[in-house]
């Protein structure tokens, strides 16, 4: 069975600084997707960034980038130039490539932005 582990329950970063959230996963599949979702307080989860396992190039979305290490089964999220609006719970997630498969989430990391 696939699992996703986020070992940092909470993190804090100074505004404008860079922070990296860690995520590891376990799977025997070779083709899958990885995601980072953001959940602001009392708001829905929104997709921040995604990575297809067959792509070697790390995904980037503006200030958000990932470090995807397939052999190590590691998928960390880097947030550059942190902003107050980045404060949220961040979930790392995994999904097999099969059409209707479920998403498997980590426990989440609560990110605090210090002004």
């Amino acid at each position, binding site marked *: 069975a696939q699992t996703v582990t986020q070992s940092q329950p909470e993190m804090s970063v100074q505004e404008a600084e860079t922070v990296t959230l860690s995520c590891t996963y376990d799977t025997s599949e070779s083709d899958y997707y990885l995601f980072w*979702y953001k959940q602001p307080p*009392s708001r*829905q989860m929104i997709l921040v960034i995604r990575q297809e396992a067959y792509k070697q190039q790390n995904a980037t979305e503006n200030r958000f980038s990932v470090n995807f290490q397939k052999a190590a089964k590691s998928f960390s999220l880097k947030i550059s130039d942190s902003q107050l609006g980045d404060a949220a719970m961040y979930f790392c997630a995994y999904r097999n490539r099969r059409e*209707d*498969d479920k998403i498997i*989430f*980590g426990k989440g990391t609560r990110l605090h932005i210090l002004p």
Partner: protein
Amino acid sequence: EPEVTQTPSHQVTQMGQEVILRCVPISNHLYFYWYRQILGQKVEFLVSFYNNEISEKSEIFDDQFSVERPDGSNFTLKIRSTKLEDSAMYFCASRIPGATLKAFFGQGTRLTVV
């Protein structure tokens, strides 16, 4: 951007009572999901629903749970006889076929069983 809407945002119910959690997925979406998160734990998959039937369910989704799409717009999760351990945040999600990378989530319903 379109949103998945869940109601109510918070529901308190007595143990043994039935509850129905409601979700309005995005209108052209065809895959629907329920997830739950017990406080301090992982977000867990409950069930997926496509073409008016369950496509997959987890071991959590036992006979006490059911899902329905009664009118083509709502997607409901019913818990027949709630237990204390059903207290959790329940998330609904939906997506269109082929858009395998992006599911849209609702903001969740916090269910408290007392």
